[in-house]
């Protein structure tokens, strides 16, 4: 299945990109998705081990199972207001 990965703020700068398509086996979880990113090496290893993640715009646990077409955003610590 294909996941749409989004990166913002400092993560976007670290990775040099704001969006990636990530192929994952069916049944993969958020944790699997993060592991897949880290396995790419380079800047991806600089990200926090367990960053906050939003799946389809809802904050989600690493154990959540993903579905084809999900939008998964890595959320740096927020600083609004």
């Amino acid at each position: 299945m294909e996941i749409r990965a989004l990166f913002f703020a400092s993560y976007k700068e670290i990775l040099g990109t704001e969006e990636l398509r990530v192929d994952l086996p069916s049944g993969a979880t958020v944790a699997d998705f993060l592991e897949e990113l880290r396995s790419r090496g380079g800047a991806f290893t600089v990200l926090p081990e367990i960053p906050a993640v939003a799946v389809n715009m809802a904050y989600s646990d690493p154990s959540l199972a993903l579905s084809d077409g999900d939008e998964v955003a890595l959320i740096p610590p927020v600083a609004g207001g």
Partner: protein
Amino acid sequence: MTVPFTRIVKDPIDPAGLLASVGSDADGASMLFTGVVRNHNQGRVVGGVRYDVYEEMATGILAQIAEEAKQLVGIDHIAVVHRVGELTVGDVSVAIAVSSPHRAEAFEACRFIIEEIKKRLPVWKKERYGDSVEEWVEGITPVGVPTSRVGRS
């Protein structure tokens, strides 16, 4: 205007207009909170800031926060606007207007909304110091947020 009214915007916020929009003849208390870009932070002189945003999600979360405030205090005269993009010192970054029959509810709603924005609105702030130095402001990792899923199926 839907109630509560919430928006993520790129243009300057009109706080007085927002406050005027929430009032009604049945309300005895109106409150406005504005977050403003300061000229300093942690001992450093700030020249301006840039807010990055996950716009679609932030729009939803802001509406969620306002709805929670409405449930919490039982009033729906609530309007919240957060600005993103380039802001300079003195610019309003967020404005929260609440109007209610009695003051306690207005204070509670207003405080709840700004605290929740700080905790979980997917917005990030980069401060500019001097001519070229820029840094992301240390933020808050969203935690304790209910793990609910907006399905696409």
